[in-house]
């Protein structure tokens, strides 16, 4: 079953709720290895997205995602603003004109998003960033797609892989972002951006499966 425009809108609304509920949690994660604002930033951004959403809710998925991207760029600030903003913009381009997304579309769209993040942030997997949650997630979805397990299975596996990737950031030594200033002391803490990435993919599986 493909993901529809309505699914997308439901997902984005749900992400706003989930990020709001996890505002303090994400901010706490950002304290020991950052500047204690990731939850605040994401919550501010998606509040703005929710206000914008109605104006585009009946457009195609690409337009919706591009609007989310520009809104995040305009409201989040910090490192995560341009990164998630770019991600949604690239995803929107990949999905432009579409009103339904099949398994293959989802994978292509998320690959484009990840490429956008890596290009903007000059980051690779293994640097203790959101990239470490998204990379395994997309790999798992790609595999799931080849195995034709269906949309809900695909999204669930992506979410689970993102969670594993997020947890895998704990022992990592950060070499990008604020956490990198800590050197050795960044080890032992979970990356807040990887956590918000997992929350978005988990919500995708929960709402579109």
């Amino acid at each position: 079953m493909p993901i529809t425009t309505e699914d997308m809108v439901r997902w984005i609304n749900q992400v706003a709720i989930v990020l709001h509920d996890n505002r303090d949690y994400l901010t706490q994660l950002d304290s020991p290895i950052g500047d204690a604002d990731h939850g605040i930033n994401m919550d501010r951004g998606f509040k703005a997205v929710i206000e914008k959403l109605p104006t585009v809710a009946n457009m195609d998925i690409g337009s919706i995602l591009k609007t989310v991207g520009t809104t995040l760029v305009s409201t989040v600030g910090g490192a995560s603003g341009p990164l998630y903003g770019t991600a949604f913009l690239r995803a929107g381009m990949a999905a432009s004109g579409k009103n339904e997304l099949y398994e293959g579309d989802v994978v292509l769209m998320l690959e484009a998003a990840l490429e956008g993040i890596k290009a903007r942030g000059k980051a690779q997997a293994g640097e203790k960033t959101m990239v470490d949650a998204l990379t395994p997630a997309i790999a798992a979805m790609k595999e799931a797609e080849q195995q034709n397990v269906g949309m809900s299975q695909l999204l669930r596996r992506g979410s689970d892989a993102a969670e594993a990737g997020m947890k895998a950031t704990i022992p990592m030594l950060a070499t990008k972002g604020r956490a990198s200033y800590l050197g050795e002391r960044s080890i032992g803490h979970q990356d807040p951006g990887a956590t918000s990435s997992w929350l978005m993919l988990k919500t995708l599986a929960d709402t579109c499966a």
Partner: protein
Amino acid sequence: MKKLINSPESVVTDALSGMQALHPELIHVDFENQVIVRAGAPVRGKVGLISGGGSGHEPMHGGFVGHGMLDAACPGAVFTSPVPDQMLAATRAVNGGAGVLHIVKNYTGDVLNFEMAAELAEADGIEVASVVTNDDVAVQDSLYTAGRRGVGVTVLLEKIVGGLAETGASLAQVAELARKVNTHGRSMGMALTSCTVPAAGKPTFELPDDEMEIGVGIHGEPGRRRVKLAPASEVTEMLATPIIEDLSLKAGERVLAFVNGMGGTPLIELYVVANELAKILKSRDVTIARSLVGSYITSLEMAGCSITLLRLDDELTRYWDAPVRTPALRWGM
């Protein structure tokens, strides 16, 4: 959390309204885009200088908008870099036809947002040059990090480059001087206490009563190490020595010595540190030719200080001495 604010949500705009109300002759605030603009901007034919960053470091940057320094500043949420929209609005507001210099402190967030803003401005047909300050020697092996953070040198750079810009120099010349200032300046800070981000409501980090953080960042980022409290003489040594070595300051050279308070430390303590710094420099036969003492780049109410040393030559000294009139820095006019 004990703060003189109305609410965490309104602290930044309330403070901007306060600046607007008390310095109408120097600045005006574009609240829609959250930009502090120099009164009378844009100045025809003058390179526009803009900077920006998270709030909570006052007076940087808004307090440095005015004649001889910045043409506009973009304050973000507390400790969160501003967004490209603000930077684009500021760039447009100060473009007097000679192009605009973006002064960016090296933090991933600031760099990425200014990058996007520069792309948008150039799409707009405005010539933009960027300089990234990265003077914090607390960050080691910066090959494996996001690179050294931009701290105290940013303040000195904005003043010196602002002095040159008033002379009608070209964007290329202004950008070149900016890079020169960054090349010859280094900083390092320390914290006695944490700070509390209003929206977070509790201290960013825990610091025992008998410990201090050496090499702390201006957002409370942990530094090189935590050590037991020590006399000001030893603390100053811990900050000054890495700076002097990294700058490889030689006997006979002249510097601008900047002793900065983090926000919660009173001036009497900064002068105690200044005295220790003067002794250290004297012992190395380095001359303090210019100085700045006070809280100019802060971390909310954090107690602590930072030291910045800038190697001076006649050019830098001339533009440091040039007239400046901003809410926070003023002389010669």
